[in-house]
């Protein structure tokens, strides 16, 4: 069973189509990154999944339960971490978690035990007596994560959790998310920092103007196998870097793209790795002292921009989702 299943989801705010026919499935125990520009429809989709908004059309299910028809049941399964949330005045970190634990129905020893576990996991114990509205952004995000974890949710929906965090806090948050993923929780996370999503996520969903434009795993995107017009290689030589350019001009199916300090960047007009091996063999045969020859990995930002560019050019960029097989809870 899918942890999240969204089918033909639409959400209109008057004339504005915030979400426009979104369909996807995320298997149990996987980590899925949700990527899109501001206003693309990420937060609206996530809020609908968290039962905080409702679809104009279509359906959304969390662990097989419809978010519109059985919102109370869905709320017991889901942990929601919004992009920003205010903290209370005159309330300590411990009191904050105590309030939410009470609100979730924990009583007496169970409550104290659960708060201990969450504070330990999120490293909030040293901050227990600090007023919650006096915390740094990183500490606040840890507190938010702690709150979302209090009911031990099966699915964690996180909207831009790393926004505004310094590098150290970002590393800490990434570590916590990795641990949660290892524990088998399904995590649906949006972020603008695509490189981090690539490291954490089993799959990535790209949304643009309320429509899903890509659903696939990060490695495929990085390798650029989706891209049209060949594969990029970085070539470095021992000697004059100009030699790479001069050699490329004379080769069929090879295009020289730009010079680099020790060589250059070339595009080989094929997806077949054996053809790339042939090109390398010809280089060596022709006397180029190749010190490095590797397939260039696009970063995810490039991949995202590439997909948007292809959309602008009128291509249908949506690739069938090669959904990752879950390692847990299946």
């Amino acid at each position, binding site marked *: 069973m899918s942890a999240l299943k969204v089918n033909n989801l639409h959400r209109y705010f008057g004339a504005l189509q915030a979400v426009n026919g979104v369909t996807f499935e995320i298997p149990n125990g996987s980590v899925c990154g949700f990527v899109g520009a501001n206003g693309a429809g990420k937060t609206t989709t996530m*809020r609908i999944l*968290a*039962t*905080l*908004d*409702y679809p104009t059309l279509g359906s959304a299910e969390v662990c097989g339960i419809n978010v*519109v*028809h059985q*919102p109370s049941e869905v*709320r017991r399964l*889901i942990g*929601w971490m*919004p992009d*920003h*949330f*205010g*903290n*209370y*005045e*005159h*309330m300590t970190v*411990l*009191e904050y978690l*105590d*309030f*939410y634990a*009470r*609100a*979730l*129905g924990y*009583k*007496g020893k169970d*409550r*104290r035990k659960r*708060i*201990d576990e969450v*504070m330990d996991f999120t490293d909030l*114990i*040293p901050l*227990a007596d600090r007023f919650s509205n006096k915390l740094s952004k990183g500490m606040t995000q840890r507190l938010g994560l702690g*709150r979302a974890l209090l009911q031990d949710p099966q699915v964690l929906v996180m909207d831009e959790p790393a926004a505004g965090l310094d590098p150290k806090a970002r590393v800490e948050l990434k570590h916590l998310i990795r641990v949660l993923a290892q524990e088998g929780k399904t995590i649906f996370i949006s972020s603008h920092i695509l490189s981090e999503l690539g490291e954490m996520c089993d799959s990535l969903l790209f949304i643009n103007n309320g429509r899903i434009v890509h659903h696939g795993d990060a490695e495929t995107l990085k390798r650029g196998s989706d891209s049209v017009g060949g594969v990029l290689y970085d070539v470095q030589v021992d000697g004059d870097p100009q030699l790479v350019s001069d050699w490329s001009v004379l080769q069929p199916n090879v295009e020289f793209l730009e010079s680099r300090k020790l060589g250059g960047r070339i595009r080989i007009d094929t997806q077949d790795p054996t053809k790339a091996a042939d090109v390398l063999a010809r280089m060596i045969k022709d006397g180029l002292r190749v010190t490095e020859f590797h397939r260039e990995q696009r970063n995810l930002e490039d991949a995202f921009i590439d997909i948007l560019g292809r959309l602008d050019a009128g291509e249908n960029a949506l690739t069938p989702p090669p959904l990752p097989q879950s390692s847990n809870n299946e």
Partner: protein
Amino acid sequence: MPITHLTDFSDKLSPMLVKELRQGLRAKTFIAVFLSLQVFLAVMLFSAGAASTSDHVGSVVSGIIFTFFAIAVLLIQPLRGIGALSSEVKGNTIDMMVLTRLSAWRIVFGKWVAIVSQSALLLSTIIPYLILRYFFGGMNLVAELTLLISMFLTSMALTAITVGLSGCSSIIVRALLPIFGLPVLMWTVAAMFLFRGFRSSSGFTDIFALDSTNSRIGMAVYVGAITYLGGSMLSLGTSLIAPAAENHALVRRLVALAAMLILLPLGYSGKIDYELFYLLTIIIAVPAILIALTESAPLVATVCKPFVKRGILGKSIGWFLYPTWASGILCSILIGLIGLAIFFSLEMLNGSVSPWDRGEFIVILAIFGGLFFPAAWQAFLFRGEGQRIGHYLLLLVGSFVMLGILTALSESMDNGLFLWFFAWNPLAFLAMLSDHKADKEVLFGAVAIVDALLLILLITRALIDIRKSASVIREVEISLKKPE
């Protein structure tokens, strides 16, 4: 590092109350009010003790105690509720609360109870001063205790109003509330105390001494009225923060309709004083109409389902009880028409003994239309769902301001014919009524026509909205037909 766990509040208390008390008791406003009240009362009592030779010192001390207690619990404490829910909405924390097992009602109720608990704390701290004041003599124990309790109950209702309206994110509402809302409330409270039963009492103290049937009935009506008003406003706050799948309008509207239908036979039986009867009708109908006219929830399948599965009758009833603006219009018109039916039928029944004449009929129709007038404008000018209450109140206040200007102009001019240019607003007929030359029958006919046009306009707009939502009903019907 071990955590020192919290043991300050029992598990049996509502989580919301615990949170609000933890925060509220540390709030600077509460600490300032609490300390200044204590310091002031202590100083005042010592001063009174030093001047205890005077005969009237006891009543002077009482007056001062009650004045300062009134400022604390009738002004400062209710005003603390203004940001109660809006701060949660702005801070994005309301979403996180809704995702817990706290219902929207428990959130609103907890906020209200917390402020009321703090008011109770203030009340408990002035009791020692009242006991000391007893020794200065001239004390009417029952009257002063009743006054104290009445003030506390009024504070509870005022706090319910501010907490309820605080669910609206509109800055207009929160600005209008202290500027216009409190004076209007004070006027309402004064009007309630001045109805015939209370007017028969010889003095202020007699009203609270409860030694006559009229004063006892008056107090009971007052308590009932503020309880209903407070409950309605808390329910409004609940609707404003509740998820779309919850229908809080249902209970609120059913209570109002039931109360109106219970009133009707009571009025015909003649067992209730007719002025009191009219007052009760207004108290029940006006908040219910105001709230129903400003509903902003969308229609979602979960809300429709219980009605749709009961067939055509259920669907028809649903259009009066869904928490949407369109059904709010239909329900408020229904409540308003029941109210009008009560007024007019009783007037005709008791015509010989009633002091009311056609002038009063015009007043009733003008106020009835005045309530729907802002909604009619709103239907076409301001469609923003989130600001609906704010826009409605702004237009209502604007209408009353216009009425004030028209009344002043008509009194300063010999000819009130210009007032007919403003006849599109039913409240303008109140200004016309002050013109002695005006033909009351013509005014009655005209205000009835303006009211009818407003209702037709609103019903048409509501039906258009209902038609737009038909797809939701169809979706529910299809899901009901599918086998489980």
